[in-house]
Protein backbone atom coordinates (compact mmCIF):
# COMPACT_ATOMS: atom_id res chain seq x y z
CA UNK A 1 0.00 0.00 0.00
CA UNK A 2 1.06 3.62 -0.46
CA UNK A 3 1.64 5.68 2.67
CA UNK A 4 0.18 8.86 1.24
CA UNK A 5 -1.81 11.35 3.29
CA UNK A 6 -2.72 13.65 0.43
CA UNK A 7 -1.35 16.55 -1.58
CA UNK A 8 -0.17 19.97 -0.44
CA UNK A 9 0.43 23.23 -2.28
CA UNK A 10 4.11 24.06 -2.33
CA UNK A 11 3.37 27.78 -2.23
CA UNK A 12 0.39 28.38 0.07
CA UNK A 13 0.29 25.09 2.01
CA UNK A 14 -3.35 24.30 1.27
CA UNK A 15 -4.12 20.58 1.49
CA UNK A 16 -5.91 18.39 -1.03
CA UNK A 17 -6.90 14.73 -1.21
CA UNK A 18 -4.63 12.41 -3.20
CA UNK A 19 -6.42 12.82 -6.52
CA UNK A 20 -5.43 13.51 -10.12
CA UNK A 21 -4.51 17.15 -9.44
CA UNK A 22 -1.34 19.12 -10.00
CA UNK A 23 -2.23 22.74 -9.31
CA UNK A 24 -3.63 24.47 -6.21
CA UNK A 25 -7.08 25.84 -7.00
CA UNK A 26 -6.44 28.84 -4.79
CA UNK A 27 -2.99 30.17 -5.75
CA UNK A 28 -2.20 27.97 -8.79
CA UNK A 29 0.97 26.72 -7.06
CA UNK A 30 2.26 23.20 -7.73
CA UNK A 31 1.05 20.31 -5.58
CA UNK A 32 3.32 17.82 -3.85
CA UNK A 33 2.67 14.48 -2.18
CA UNK A 34 2.41 14.34 1.61
CA UNK A 35 3.55 11.07 3.18
CA UNK A 36 2.75 9.40 6.47
CA UNK A 37 6.39 9.12 7.51
CA UNK A 38 5.48 7.92 11.03
CA UNK A 39 4.00 4.75 9.59
CA UNK A 40 6.74 4.45 6.96
CA UNK A 41 9.39 4.57 9.68
CA UNK A 42 7.61 1.71 11.47
CA UNK A 43 7.72 -0.61 8.47
CA UNK A 44 10.74 0.34 6.38
CA UNK A 45 14.17 -1.21 6.84
CA UNK A 46 17.20 -2.01 4.73
CA UNK A 47 16.25 -5.70 4.94
CA UNK A 48 12.73 -5.06 3.68
CA UNK A 49 14.13 -3.06 0.77
CA UNK A 50 16.68 -5.74 -0.10
CA UNK A 51 13.91 -8.34 -0.29
CA UNK A 52 11.97 -6.28 -2.84
CA UNK A 53 12.07 -6.61 -6.61
CA UNK A 54 15.11 -5.51 -8.62
CA UNK A 55 13.27 -2.41 -9.81
CA UNK A 56 12.18 0.94 -8.39
CA UNK A 57 9.39 -0.90 -6.58
CA UNK A 58 11.83 -2.20 -3.98
CA UNK A 59 11.32 1.30 -2.51
CA UNK A 60 7.55 1.10 -2.70
CA UNK A 61 7.09 2.32 0.90
CA UNK A 62 8.51 5.67 -0.24
CA UNK A 63 6.55 5.92 -3.49
CA UNK A 64 3.09 7.47 -3.82
CA UNK A 65 1.42 4.55 -5.62
CA UNK A 66 0.42 1.08 -4.53
CA UNK A 67 3.38 -1.21 -5.15
CA UNK A 68 1.40 -4.46 -4.71
CA UNK A 69 0.57 -4.56 -8.41
CA UNK A 70 2.60 -1.84 -10.12
CA UNK A 71 2.90 -1.13 -13.83
CA UNK A 72 6.46 -2.40 -13.84
CA UNK A 73 8.61 -3.04 -16.89
CA UNK A 74 11.55 -3.34 -14.46
CA UNK A 75 12.59 0.29 -14.40
CA UNK A 76 15.48 1.06 -12.12
CA UNK A 77 18.08 -0.90 -10.19
CA UNK A 78 20.48 0.10 -12.93
CA UNK A 79 24.25 -0.35 -12.57
CA UNK A 80 26.47 1.88 -10.48
CA UNK A 81 29.89 1.49 -12.04
CA UNK A 82 33.28 2.51 -10.67
CA UNK A 83 34.63 4.69 -13.49
CA UNK A 84 38.36 4.03 -13.30
CA UNK A 85 39.24 5.14 -16.82
CA UNK A 86 37.08 8.25 -16.91
CA UNK A 87 38.24 9.05 -13.40
CA UNK A 88 41.86 8.68 -14.42
CA UNK A 89 41.43 11.04 -17.35
CA UNK A 90 39.77 13.63 -15.08
CA UNK A 91 42.03 13.15 -12.07
CA UNK A 92 39.24 11.67 -9.92
CA UNK A 93 40.00 8.49 -7.99
CA UNK A 94 36.56 7.87 -6.53
CA UNK A 95 34.21 8.39 -9.44
CA UNK A 96 31.07 6.33 -10.15
CA UNK A 97 28.62 6.34 -13.02
CA UNK A 98 24.94 5.71 -12.39
CA UNK A 99 24.10 4.23 -15.76
CA UNK A 100 20.38 4.84 -16.21
CA UNK A 101 20.65 4.54 -19.97
CA UNK A 102 19.97 0.80 -19.63
CA UNK A 103 16.40 1.14 -18.40
CA UNK A 104 13.81 -0.84 -20.40
CA UNK A 105 12.99 2.06 -22.75
CA UNK A 106 16.56 3.38 -22.47
CA UNK A 107 16.15 6.41 -20.21
CA UNK A 108 15.44 7.39 -16.61
CA UNK A 109 11.90 8.34 -17.66
CA UNK A 110 10.88 4.74 -16.97
CA UNK A 111 11.19 5.50 -13.25
CA UNK A 112 8.75 8.40 -13.26
CA UNK A 113 6.37 6.89 -15.79
CA UNK A 114 6.15 3.61 -13.88
CA UNK A 115 4.89 5.55 -10.85
CA UNK A 116 2.55 7.72 -12.93
CA UNK A 117 1.15 4.71 -14.80
CA UNK A 118 0.56 2.80 -11.58
CA UNK A 119 -1.23 5.80 -10.11
CA UNK A 120 -3.27 6.22 -13.30
CA UNK A 121 -4.48 2.63 -12.96
CA UNK A 122 -5.43 3.30 -9.32
CA UNK A 123 -7.46 6.30 -10.50
CA UNK A 124 -9.04 4.07 -13.19
CA UNK A 125 -7.92 6.16 -16.15
CA UNK A 126 -8.11 4.33 -19.45
CA UNK A 127 -5.56 6.49 -21.27
CA UNK A 128 -1.97 7.43 -20.51
CA UNK A 129 -0.74 10.52 -22.35
CA UNK A 130 2.18 12.90 -22.76
CA UNK A 131 3.82 15.43 -25.05
CA UNK A 132 7.40 14.59 -25.80
CA UNK A 133 10.39 14.97 -28.04
CA UNK A 134 11.69 11.47 -27.34
CA UNK A 135 12.37 9.61 -24.11
CA UNK A 136 9.08 10.35 -22.37
CA UNK A 137 7.05 9.26 -25.42
CA UNK A 138 8.88 5.92 -25.52
CA UNK A 139 8.36 5.30 -21.84
CA UNK A 140 4.68 6.26 -21.79
CA UNK A 141 3.93 4.06 -24.79
CA UNK A 142 5.83 1.13 -23.27
CA UNK A 143 4.14 1.38 -19.87
CA UNK A 144 0.68 1.76 -21.41
CA UNK A 145 1.35 -1.40 -23.40
CA UNK A 146 2.33 -3.21 -20.20
CA UNK A 147 -0.75 -1.90 -18.37
CA UNK A 148 -3.05 -2.79 -21.25
CA UNK A 149 -4.43 0.72 -21.57
CA UNK A 150 -4.44 3.24 -24.38
CA UNK A 151 -1.54 5.60 -24.95
CA UNK A 152 -1.84 8.97 -26.69
CA UNK A 153 1.48 10.58 -27.45
CA UNK A 154 1.93 14.08 -28.89
CA UNK A 155 5.13 14.71 -30.81
CA UNK A 156 6.43 17.68 -32.83
CA UNK A 157 6.09 17.04 -36.55
CA UNK A 158 9.86 17.26 -37.15
CA UNK A 159 10.92 14.71 -34.54
CA UNK A 160 13.78 12.48 -35.67
CA UNK A 161 12.69 9.19 -37.25
CA UNK A 162 14.57 7.06 -34.74
CA UNK A 163 12.69 8.57 -31.84
CA UNK A 164 9.34 8.27 -33.59
CA UNK A 165 9.92 4.57 -34.22
CA UNK A 166 11.18 4.08 -30.65
CA UNK A 167 7.77 5.15 -29.35
CA UNK A 168 5.56 3.94 -32.21
CA UNK A 169 6.66 0.32 -31.81
CA UNK A 170 4.62 0.03 -28.60
CA UNK A 171 1.43 0.88 -30.49
CA UNK A 172 0.33 4.24 -29.06
CA UNK A 173 -1.97 6.68 -30.81
CA UNK A 174 0.64 9.13 -32.01
CA UNK A 175 -0.33 12.71 -32.83
CA UNK A 176 2.23 14.63 -34.85
CA UNK A 177 1.64 18.36 -34.31
CA UNK A 178 2.69 20.86 -36.94
CA UNK A 179 3.71 24.12 -35.30
CA UNK A 180 6.28 25.90 -33.22
CA UNK A 181 7.46 24.54 -29.91
CA UNK A 182 5.23 27.02 -28.06
CA UNK A 183 2.19 26.11 -30.15
CA UNK A 184 2.67 22.41 -29.47
CA UNK A 185 3.14 23.15 -25.78
CA UNK A 186 -0.05 25.24 -25.62
CA UNK A 187 -2.13 22.69 -27.49
CA UNK A 188 -1.06 19.90 -25.19
CA UNK A 189 -1.95 21.92 -22.10
CA UNK A 190 -5.40 22.58 -23.56
CA UNK A 191 -5.91 18.92 -24.42
CA UNK A 192 -4.91 17.97 -20.87
CA UNK A 193 -7.55 20.39 -19.54
CA UNK A 194 -10.27 19.02 -21.77
CA UNK A 195 -9.79 15.23 -21.94
CA UNK A 196 -10.15 12.78 -19.06
CA UNK A 197 -6.73 11.26 -19.60
CA UNK A 198 -3.78 10.68 -17.30
CA UNK A 199 -1.17 13.10 -18.64
CA UNK A 200 1.87 11.80 -16.83
CA UNK A 201 3.60 15.16 -16.40
CA UNK A 202 0.48 17.31 -16.00
CA UNK A 203 -2.35 15.94 -13.86
CA UNK A 204 -0.19 13.00 -12.68
CA UNK A 205 2.82 15.24 -12.03
CA UNK A 206 2.90 15.16 -8.20
CA UNK A 207 3.14 11.35 -8.33
CA UNK A 208 5.23 11.12 -11.52
CA UNK A 209 8.01 13.37 -10.22
CA UNK A 210 8.41 11.27 -7.08
CA UNK A 211 9.73 8.40 -9.20
CA UNK A 212 13.02 10.29 -9.57
CA UNK A 213 13.71 9.91 -5.87
CA UNK A 214 14.68 6.32 -6.61
CA UNK A 215 17.81 7.66 -8.34
CA UNK A 216 18.90 8.84 -4.91
CA UNK A 217 17.83 5.70 -3.04
CA UNK A 218 19.61 3.36 -5.43
CA UNK A 219 22.91 5.20 -5.38
CA UNK A 220 22.87 5.19 -1.56
CA UNK A 221 22.00 1.49 -1.41
CA UNK A 222 24.60 0.56 -4.04
CA UNK A 223 27.27 2.50 -2.14
CA UNK A 224 26.51 0.49 1.01
CA UNK A 225 23.97 2.96 2.43
CA UNK A 226 26.23 5.96 2.05
CA UNK A 227 25.65 9.08 0.03
CA UNK A 228 28.26 10.71 -2.23
CA UNK A 229 30.25 13.87 -1.58
CA UNK A 230 29.21 15.16 -4.99
CA UNK A 231 26.60 14.31 -7.60
CA UNK A 232 26.43 15.70 -11.13
CA UNK A 233 22.96 15.73 -12.64
CA UNK A 234 21.52 16.94 -15.96
CA UNK A 235 18.53 19.25 -15.64
CA UNK A 236 15.56 20.17 -17.79
CA UNK A 237 12.51 20.97 -15.61
CA UNK A 238 14.63 20.74 -12.45
CA UNK A 239 12.36 18.07 -10.97
CA UNK A 240 14.85 15.19 -11.03
CA UNK A 241 17.47 17.40 -9.40
CA UNK A 242 15.19 18.27 -6.48
CA UNK A 243 13.92 14.73 -6.07
CA UNK A 244 17.36 13.11 -5.83
CA UNK A 245 18.09 15.56 -3.02
CA UNK A 246 14.77 14.71 -1.40
CA UNK A 247 15.60 11.00 -1.71
CA UNK A 248 18.89 11.40 0.15
CA UNK A 249 17.19 13.39 2.89
CA UNK A 250 14.35 10.90 3.29
CA UNK A 251 16.83 8.07 3.78
CA UNK A 252 18.71 10.15 6.36
CA UNK A 253 15.59 11.15 8.29
CA UNK A 254 14.41 7.54 8.36
CA UNK A 255 17.75 6.42 9.78
CA UNK A 256 18.58 4.20 6.80
CA UNK A 257 22.02 5.67 6.05
CA UNK A 258 25.11 4.27 7.71
CA UNK A 259 25.95 6.04 10.96
CA UNK A 260 23.15 8.58 10.59
CA UNK A 261 20.58 9.11 13.34
CA UNK A 262 16.92 9.29 12.29
CA UNK A 263 15.37 12.76 12.54
CA UNK A 264 12.01 14.45 12.26
CA UNK A 265 10.81 15.57 8.84
CA UNK A 266 9.68 18.86 10.36
CA UNK A 267 6.73 20.98 9.24
CA UNK A 268 7.52 20.95 5.51
CA UNK A 269 8.34 17.53 4.09
CA UNK A 270 9.41 18.96 0.75
CA UNK A 271 12.16 21.17 2.10
CA UNK A 272 13.51 18.86 4.78
CA UNK A 273 17.31 18.85 5.11
CA UNK A 274 18.99 16.40 7.44
CA UNK A 275 22.33 17.85 8.61
CA UNK A 276 24.11 14.60 7.74
CA UNK A 277 23.23 15.08 4.07
CA UNK A 278 26.28 17.00 2.90
CA UNK A 279 26.23 15.95 -0.74
CA UNK A 280 27.01 18.84 -3.06
CA UNK A 281 24.44 18.89 -5.84
CA UNK A 282 25.87 20.00 -9.19
CA UNK A 283 23.57 20.81 -12.08
CA UNK A 284 24.39 20.51 -15.79
CA UNK A 285 22.53 22.27 -18.62
CA UNK A 286 23.57 23.08 -22.16
CA UNK A 287 24.25 26.70 -23.10
CA UNK A 288 21.42 26.61 -25.65
CA UNK A 289 18.86 26.03 -22.89
CA UNK A 290 20.18 26.96 -19.47
CA UNK A 291 17.48 29.01 -17.71
CA UNK A 292 18.21 27.56 -14.26
CA UNK A 293 21.99 27.94 -14.56
CA UNK A 294 21.51 31.54 -15.72
CA UNK A 295 19.23 32.38 -12.80
CA UNK A 296 21.72 30.77 -10.39
CA UNK A 297 24.69 32.57 -11.89
CA UNK A 298 22.94 35.95 -11.76
CA UNK A 299 21.52 35.44 -8.29
CA UNK A 300 17.99 35.89 -9.62
CA UNK A 301 15.11 35.01 -7.31
CA UNK A 302 13.19 33.54 -10.26
CA UNK A 303 13.91 31.75 -13.51
CA UNK A 304 13.44 33.69 -16.75
CA UNK A 305 12.06 31.46 -19.51
CA UNK A 306 14.13 30.99 -22.68
CA UNK A 307 13.49 29.58 -26.13
CA UNK A 308 15.54 26.36 -26.32
CA UNK A 309 18.18 26.09 -29.01
CA UNK A 310 20.36 23.15 -28.06
CA UNK A 311 21.40 19.81 -29.47
CA UNK A 312 20.59 18.32 -26.07
CA UNK A 313 16.91 18.00 -26.96
CA UNK A 314 16.01 15.93 -23.93
CA UNK A 315 17.04 18.89 -21.75
CA UNK A 316 15.24 21.49 -23.87
CA UNK A 317 12.75 22.88 -21.38
CA UNK A 318 12.83 26.67 -21.64
CA UNK A 319 10.32 27.31 -18.88
CA UNK A 320 11.23 24.83 -16.14
CA UNK A 321 8.39 24.16 -13.71
CA UNK A 322 10.73 23.26 -10.84
CA UNK A 323 13.51 25.72 -11.65
CA UNK A 324 13.03 27.84 -8.56
CA UNK A 325 13.00 24.79 -6.30
CA UNK A 326 16.16 23.47 -7.96
CA UNK A 327 17.88 26.76 -7.13
CA UNK A 328 16.93 26.29 -3.48
CA UNK A 329 18.59 22.85 -3.55
CA UNK A 330 21.70 24.33 -5.15
CA UNK A 331 21.89 26.84 -2.30
CA UNK A 332 21.12 24.38 0.47
CA UNK A 333 23.61 21.78 -0.69
CA UNK A 334 26.44 24.18 -1.50
CA UNK A 335 26.40 22.89 -5.05
CA UNK A 336 26.95 24.57 -8.38
CA UNK A 337 25.39 24.92 -11.82
CA UNK A 338 27.23 24.88 -15.10
CA UNK A 339 26.13 25.56 -18.68
CA UNK A 340 28.08 23.39 -21.07
CA UNK A 341 29.05 24.97 -24.42
CA UNK A 342 27.19 23.23 -27.24
CA UNK A 343 30.47 22.14 -28.87
CA UNK A 344 31.51 20.31 -25.70
CA UNK A 345 28.37 18.15 -25.60
CA UNK A 346 29.67 15.79 -28.27
CA UNK A 347 33.10 15.70 -26.61
CA UNK A 348 31.40 14.53 -23.44
CA UNK A 349 29.57 11.73 -25.25
CA UNK A 350 32.79 10.54 -26.86
CA UNK A 351 34.81 10.78 -23.66
CA UNK A 352 32.35 8.55 -21.81
CA UNK A 353 32.15 6.04 -24.66
CA UNK A 354 35.90 5.83 -25.16
CA UNK A 355 36.79 5.54 -21.48
CA UNK A 356 33.96 3.48 -20.02
CA UNK A 357 32.19 1.77 -22.93
CA UNK A 358 28.92 3.60 -22.28
CA UNK A 359 27.10 5.24 -25.18
CA UNK A 360 24.97 8.08 -23.86
CA UNK A 361 22.68 10.55 -25.55
CA UNK A 362 23.34 14.29 -25.74
CA UNK A 363 22.09 14.88 -22.17
CA UNK A 364 24.82 12.53 -20.97
CA UNK A 365 27.35 14.50 -23.00
CA UNK A 366 26.24 17.61 -21.13
CA UNK A 367 26.66 15.87 -17.80
CA UNK A 368 30.11 14.43 -18.52
CA UNK A 369 31.33 17.79 -19.82
CA UNK A 370 30.05 19.49 -16.67
CA UNK A 371 31.84 16.85 -14.58
CA UNK A 372 35.05 17.59 -16.49
CA UNK A 373 34.65 21.28 -15.73
CA UNK A 374 34.13 20.57 -12.02
CA UNK A 375 37.23 18.35 -11.93
CA UNK A 376 39.37 20.81 -13.90
CA UNK A 377 38.34 23.72 -11.66
CA UNK A 378 39.13 21.79 -8.48
CA UNK A 379 35.54 21.96 -7.25
CA UNK A 380 35.71 18.18 -6.88
CA UNK A 381 38.84 16.92 -5.12
CA UNK A 382 40.54 13.75 -6.40
CA UNK A 383 39.48 11.47 -3.54
CA UNK A 384 35.95 12.74 -3.03
CA UNK A 385 33.18 10.25 -3.69
CA UNK A 386 31.44 11.47 -6.83
CA UNK A 387 28.50 10.08 -8.78
CA UNK A 388 27.59 11.25 -12.26
CA UNK A 389 24.09 10.45 -13.51
CA UNK A 390 23.81 9.22 -17.11
CA UNK A 391 20.10 9.33 -17.86
CA UNK A 392 19.65 8.34 -21.50
CA UNK A 393 21.00 6.04 -24.20
CA UNK A 394 23.07 7.16 -27.17
CA UNK A 395 21.12 5.05 -29.64
CA UNK A 396 18.40 7.72 -29.41
CA UNK A 397 20.58 10.57 -30.66
CA UNK A 398 22.88 8.82 -33.12
CA UNK A 399 22.68 11.72 -35.57
CA UNK A 400 24.64 13.87 -33.11
CA UNK A 401 27.76 11.73 -33.45
CA UNK A 402 27.62 10.48 -37.02
CA UNK A 403 31.14 11.77 -37.66
CA UNK A 404 32.62 8.91 -35.64
CA UNK A 405 31.86 6.55 -38.52
CA UNK A 406 35.15 6.40 -40.35
CA UNK A 407 35.92 2.79 -41.28
CA UNK A 408 38.98 1.52 -43.13
CA UNK A 409 37.53 0.55 -46.53
CA UNK A 410 39.40 -2.22 -48.33
CA UNK A 411 39.06 -4.89 -51.00
CA UNK A 412 38.70 -8.43 -49.62
CA UNK A 413 42.42 -9.35 -49.61
CA UNK A 414 45.01 -9.77 -46.87
CA UNK A 415 47.37 -7.39 -48.69
CA UNK A 416 44.80 -4.63 -48.76
CA UNK A 417 44.14 -5.14 -45.06
CA UNK A 418 47.81 -5.03 -44.13
CA UNK A 419 48.33 -1.87 -46.19
CA UNK A 420 45.75 0.07 -44.23
CA UNK A 421 45.94 -1.45 -40.77
CA UNK A 422 49.50 -0.30 -40.16
CA UNK A 423 48.42 3.29 -40.80
CA UNK A 424 45.68 3.11 -38.13
CA UNK A 425 47.19 1.00 -35.33
CA UNK A 426 50.56 -0.44 -34.40
CA UNK A 427 50.41 -4.23 -34.66
CA UNK A 428 52.62 -6.15 -32.25
CA UNK A 429 54.86 -9.02 -33.50
Amino acid at each position, binding site marked *: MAFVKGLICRECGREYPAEALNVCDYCFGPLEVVYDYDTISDVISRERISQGPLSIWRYQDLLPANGDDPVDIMAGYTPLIKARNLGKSLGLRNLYIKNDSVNPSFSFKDRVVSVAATKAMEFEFDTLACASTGNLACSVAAHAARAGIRAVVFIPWDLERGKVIGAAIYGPTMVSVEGTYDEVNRLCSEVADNYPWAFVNINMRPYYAEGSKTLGYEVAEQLGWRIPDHVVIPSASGAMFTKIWKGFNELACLGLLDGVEAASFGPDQNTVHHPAVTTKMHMAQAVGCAPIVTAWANGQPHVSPVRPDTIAKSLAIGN*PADGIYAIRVLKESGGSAYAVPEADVIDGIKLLAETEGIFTETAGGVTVSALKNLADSGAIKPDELTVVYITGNGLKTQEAVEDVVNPLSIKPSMGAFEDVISQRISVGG
Partner: protein
Amino acid sequence: MGTQRVKFTFMTQMVKEPIIYQLGQNFNLVTNIRRADVREDMGWVVLELDGDDTEIQRGLDWVSAIGVRVDPLSGDVIEG
Protein backbone atom coordinates in the same frame (compact mmCIF):
# COMPACT_ATOMS: atom_id res chain seq x y z
CA MET B 1 -17.58 31.35 -22.44
CA GLY B 2 -14.37 29.85 -21.21
CA THR B 3 -11.61 30.01 -18.66
CA GLN B 4 -7.88 29.83 -19.15
CA ARG B 5 -5.07 29.74 -16.60
CA VAL B 6 -1.81 31.24 -17.81
CA LYS B 7 1.49 32.65 -16.70
CA PHE B 8 2.77 36.00 -18.02
CA THR B 9 6.46 36.81 -17.79
CA PHE B 10 7.46 40.48 -18.20
CA MET B 11 10.94 41.61 -19.05
CA THR B 12 12.39 44.90 -17.80
CA GLN B 13 10.85 47.20 -20.39
CA MET B 14 7.31 45.87 -19.73
CA VAL B 15 7.29 45.86 -15.93
CA LYS B 16 5.72 49.33 -15.58
CA GLU B 17 3.01 48.83 -18.22
CA PRO B 18 -0.61 48.29 -17.07
CA ILE B 19 -0.96 45.26 -19.32
CA ILE B 20 -3.44 43.27 -17.27
CA TYR B 21 -5.71 46.32 -16.93
CA GLN B 22 -5.61 46.85 -20.69
CA LEU B 23 -6.31 43.17 -21.29
CA GLY B 24 -9.48 43.41 -19.25
CA GLN B 25 -10.58 46.71 -20.82
CA ASN B 26 -9.80 46.03 -24.45
CA PHE B 27 -10.88 42.40 -24.74
CA ASN B 28 -13.81 42.18 -22.39
CA LEU B 29 -12.09 39.64 -20.18
CA VAL B 30 -12.25 39.16 -16.41
CA THR B 31 -8.69 38.86 -15.13
CA ASN B 32 -8.12 37.19 -11.78
CA ILE B 33 -4.54 37.28 -10.47
CA ARG B 34 -3.67 34.42 -8.13
CA ARG B 35 0.05 34.80 -7.57
CA ALA B 36 2.71 37.22 -8.76
CA ASP B 37 6.25 38.41 -8.22
CA VAL B 38 7.10 41.72 -9.88
CA ARG B 39 10.50 43.31 -9.41
CA GLU B 40 12.46 46.09 -11.05
CA ASP B 41 14.06 43.93 -13.70
CA MET B 42 11.34 41.39 -14.43
CA GLY B 43 8.14 39.93 -13.15
CA TRP B 44 5.65 37.13 -13.53
CA VAL B 45 1.97 36.80 -12.87
CA VAL B 46 -0.21 33.70 -12.84
CA LEU B 47 -3.81 34.50 -13.52
CA GLU B 48 -7.13 33.20 -14.71
CA LEU B 49 -8.91 34.71 -17.69
CA ASP B 50 -12.69 34.44 -18.00
CA GLY B 51 -14.55 35.37 -21.14
CA ASP B 52 -15.53 34.39 -24.61
CA ASP B 53 -13.08 31.83 -26.07
CA THR B 54 -12.40 34.03 -29.08
CA GLU B 55 -11.74 37.05 -26.87
CA ILE B 56 -9.36 35.05 -24.68
CA GLN B 57 -7.41 34.01 -27.76
CA ARG B 58 -7.37 37.57 -29.14
CA GLY B 59 -6.24 38.90 -25.80
CA LEU B 60 -3.43 36.37 -25.48
CA ASP B 61 -2.31 37.10 -29.05
CA TRP B 62 -2.15 40.81 -28.18
CA VAL B 63 -0.20 40.20 -24.97
CA SER B 64 2.31 38.03 -26.87
CA ALA B 65 2.58 40.60 -29.65
CA ILE B 66 3.62 43.37 -27.26
CA GLY B 67 6.44 41.24 -25.90
CA VAL B 68 5.05 39.46 -22.86
CA ARG B 69 5.82 35.77 -22.69
CA VAL B 70 2.67 33.69 -22.29
CA ASP B 71 2.94 30.14 -20.96
CA PRO B 72 0.57 27.47 -19.77
CA LEU B 73 0.33 27.31 -16.00
CA SER B 74 2.25 24.04 -15.83
CA GLY B 75 5.28 25.46 -17.65
CA ASP B 76 6.67 23.46 -20.55
CA VAL B 77 4.74 20.22 -20.81
CA ILE B 78 6.75 18.87 -23.72
CA GLU B 79 9.52 16.78 -22.20
CA GLY B 80 12.48 15.08 -23.79
